[in-house]
């Protein structure tokens, strides 16, 4: 609600369409992702969680916390800023802000789980994979997302999905996290 009100103030006509998850729902989805990640990778050895800026970063941290609760070991976490690897630099709006990429361990021979909030066209994930391989040669790269909203433009699929949501192109899936927003929820909005 707050989000749509704020957009309205900026002059954009935004209508709230659906609530997808509340705070508890997000937490449950992340718990499930954490169990699936350790189940598939048989523990945490050589595991590295890498969040894609911005909202993938706190999600990766939370999943790492949950893996620690399950396994007693917290996998290392990193963060990627994919601005320099985008394929749409010439078409995005105002000049993009470049933030730091931080990969704390050697990625060679590790299993990397990329974490992002919403999987949409797949272009962000493509850029993230290009950036990752510039740091070394991971043994495997997997993808975990909180929401998969469809409409892929590249042959990319997630290995771990919090929730699949059917959307139209005009709709926007908004993941709001306490780290950056006033509220914690996932909503679908539409511009009129």
């Amino acid at each position, binding site marked *: 609600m707050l989000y749509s009100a704020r957009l309205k103030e900026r002059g954009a006509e935004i209508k709230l369409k659906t609530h997808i998850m509340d705070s508890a729902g997000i937490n449950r989805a992340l718990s499930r992702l954490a169990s699936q990640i350790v189940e598939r990778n048989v523990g945490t050895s050589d595991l590295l969680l890498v969040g894609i800026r911005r909202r993938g970063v706190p999600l990766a941290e939370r999943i790492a916390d949950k893996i620690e609760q399950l396994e007693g070991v917290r996998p290392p976490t990193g963060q990627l*800023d994919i*601005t*320099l*690897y985008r394929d749409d*630099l*010439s*078409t*995005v709006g*105002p*000049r*993009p*802000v*470049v*933030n*730091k*990429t*931080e990969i704390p361990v050697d990625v060679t021979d590790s299993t990397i789980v990329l974490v992002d909030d919403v999987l949409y066209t797949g272009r962000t994930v493509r850029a993230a994979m*290009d*950036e990752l391989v*510039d*740091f*070394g040669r991971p043994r495997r790269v997997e993808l975990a997302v909180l929401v998969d909203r469809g409409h892929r433009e590249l042959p990319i699929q997630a290995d771990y999905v919090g929730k699949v949501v059917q959307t139209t192109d005009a709709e926007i899936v908004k993941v709001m996290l306490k780290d950056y927003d006033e509220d914690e929820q996932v909503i679908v909005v539409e511009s009129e």
Partner: protein
Amino acid sequence: MPFIRKDLLGIRELSVEEITTILDTAESFKEVSGRSIKKVPTLRGKTVINLFFEASTRTRTSFEIAAKRLSADAVNISASTSSVSKGESLIDTAQNLQAMAPDAIVIRHPSPGVPHQLSRMVGSSIINGGDGAHEHPTQALLDAFTIREHKGSIGGLQVAIVGDIRHSRVARSNAHLLTKLGAHVRIAGPRTLIPPAYDRLIESSEGSLIVCDHIDDAIAGSDVVMMLRIQRERMSDAFFPSLKEYSVQYGLTLRRLDLAASDCIVMHPGPVNRGIEISSEVVDGARSLILDQVTNGVAVRMAILFLLIGRDGS
């Protein structure tokens, strides 16, 4: 994101927000130079021409490396090997380069204002790589970046700039930049090497820029000491009796450095005349950031190229 410009011609016309944007962006680019694969695809397909009418090692190489780490194609032209030596005018050179559609041209020229003139003649982004004794904006930005990296911020710092102020575009760009960011700048050098133009700068600075008669007054208690090279190639007159005397009166020695704050850092834009404006012990000493400046130059120039030509239609 307040940085929407075609060119980077000087520090004087930049706002504090624009300067901060460049420095913040450079921080992210510094990380790229620390990777094992020091290259990102950001400026793939862009062309950067380095057009140098004066000798340069650091600046030209730094721009070339910056362009290449962003995947742009860098072409170097130096006046001695170009058609300029066959008598081609600047306008003709510019129009011919423009016909090859570069995205950015980095120009260094002995005459002040040439980059500004070029920017009116061509559509490419123009970056001033030093124009006479006027400005050298990328050097001042990398100096500010280096100071910020070591001191946290620039506001409130005491900065001494010592040496050949008259011929120094570095001093002029730094005087603009550091006072804009709130530092107190003290200038020292032989009176013959402090040009009258500084009177106006000092007047408009409201006390944040002063001239000291003695180098020791400038250095006393300062957080940053920036030494300038004696530019013998630009000196047609006798500005001081001898190099030996200059070195005694204005050279930075370890003993003189004791006057500065205990955590003072020493900078020099290079190339260094060891034993003239600065002693070897200081150059190689623990407080010297001269090589950090060179490292940071690449990150700052990557940021500038990215901000100027990182996207089309600007």
